[in-house]
């Protein structure tokens, strides 16, 4: 059973991480702005890609993961004659399912960052991509950390539906142990506890990560050393620039 729990964890963590990556990519594409003077080709391409992504999100959010698992696993087997194997199938299904949820979450996260910061970034000449990477996404990520944690916990629990395609995770192993020794109540008490321990641990861990991301609540005033450095060694870093505009190169 411990091995089953390990499998559950690995699938949940890998699935959540890949799912988040998918979610970020989808969310990023969906929030690319179209300008009036963009080429027609770009506009059409973006439109098509967005429709496909929208379908992906709606289909995988709107159907149970267990059904998706059966559909994809047996679909691959019958239509394409591919046997994905337990790990591939599990990673694939959990990732793609999480990705659909995360796409919407990431989009929300991006919109949660005030537009004023995008304008601030534009005003210093940053491109859309630079703004996303340096300003918006770090804040969006912080804002959606609770949902990412939620998703991880849901995934830890929901991997049990993968037992339907023969994935030997915690629920599957518990069932076989219980069946072999006729100890249903005892076994599933332990199983309950194991799920709970895993989810509690990760809620705690994610809170911790969130705190770390927030950084210190206070800041140090720059020391006299730094200030001496600032005013002592920096006469004018932009000499030629300052000169050609007639700005004085002294600053107190």
């Amino acid at each position: 059973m411990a091995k089953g729990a390990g499998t559950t964890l690995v699938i949940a963590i890998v699935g959540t991480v890949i799912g988040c990556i998918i979610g970020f990519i989808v969310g990023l594409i969906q929030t690319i702005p179209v300008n009036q003077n963009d080429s027609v080709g770009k506009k059409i391409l973006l439109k098509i890609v967005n429709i496909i992504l929208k379908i992906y999100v709606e289909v995988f959010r709107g159907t149970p993961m267990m059904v998706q698992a059966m559909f994809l696993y047996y679909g691959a087997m019958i239509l394409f004659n591919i046997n994905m194997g337990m790990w591939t199938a599990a990673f694939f299904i959990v990732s793609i399912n999480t990705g659909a949820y995360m796409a919407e979450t990431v989009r929300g996260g991006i919109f949660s960052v005030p537009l004023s910061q995008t304008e601030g970034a534009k005003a210093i000449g940053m491109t859309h991509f630079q703004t996303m990477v340096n300003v918006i996404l770090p804040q969006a990520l912080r804002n959606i950390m609770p949902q990412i944690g939620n998703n991880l916990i849901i995934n830890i629990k929901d991997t049990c539906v993968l037992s339907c395609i023969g994935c030997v995770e915690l629920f599957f192993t518990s069932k076989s142990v219980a069946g072999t020794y006729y100890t249903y109540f005892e076994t599933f008490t332990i199983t309950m506890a194991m799920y709970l321990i895993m989810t509690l641990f990760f809620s705690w861990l994610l809170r911790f990560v969130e705190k770390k991301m927030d950084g210190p609540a206070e800041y140090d005033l720059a020391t006299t050393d730094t200030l001496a450095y600032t005013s002592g060694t920096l006469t004018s870093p932009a000499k030629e620039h300052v000169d050609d505009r007639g700005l004085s190169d002294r600053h107190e």
Partner: protein
Amino acid sequence: MSNYDSNSGNGIIEIKHLGKVFGKHEVLKDINFSIKEGDVTCIIGASGSGKSTMLRCINLLETPTSGEILFKGKDILKEKNVAAYRAKVGMCFQSFNLFSNMTALKNCMVGPMKVLKKSKEEAEKEALFYLDKVGMSPYIKAKPKQLSGGQQQRVAIARALAMHPDVLLFDEPTSALDPQMVGDVLEVMKKLASEGLTMIIVTHEMAFARDVSDRVVYMQDGIIWEEGTPEEIFGNPTKPETRDFLSRFRNM
């Protein structure tokens, strides 16, 4: 270095027949004026007269519906690389628009590093220089939300200066500030004016406009009603509308 170096017109920025329509609302009507290099131009006018819209058009945060904006003789509305243009014409906002995920120092470094491709060391040196210039060097490690409005605005000015802009636009930089902080920010702007930086400032601080500007523009209903030297506009306005508007600021 840039494609803007050849100077053909007489003003660094020339606005010709600029119009902006939001839906059916004609916010700017046939705006014409030109900005001389090194000049400080203050734009005054009642709320809703289109001051912000005009400034945002100059920075291409809004796309004008008609007319031309020439920067060093080139029509920026035909410019493909909008980001490169914005790097040369900076903007400071009423609400500061700092990046909340970065310290004051990082706020001033990200543009030079990402847009101007400066090394981290150089960007940091310059950021420290400009933060010192605006009197914010003790607070380089603070995040925006840990700073007062006046402090945030000064960081925002340092961030804009770190891009070595040719022109700096200000949209009511002190309107969101408590009275006791207005002075600090205006002080910084006066210093920049005396150093010869080309600035266009939308402001309700009439005393400041009178003291620092080379030219004052009075706007009403999307039209430039009257423009002239501060002496002309404040001392002896020719239009009754201008006189009317200014009579509300008799405490200066």
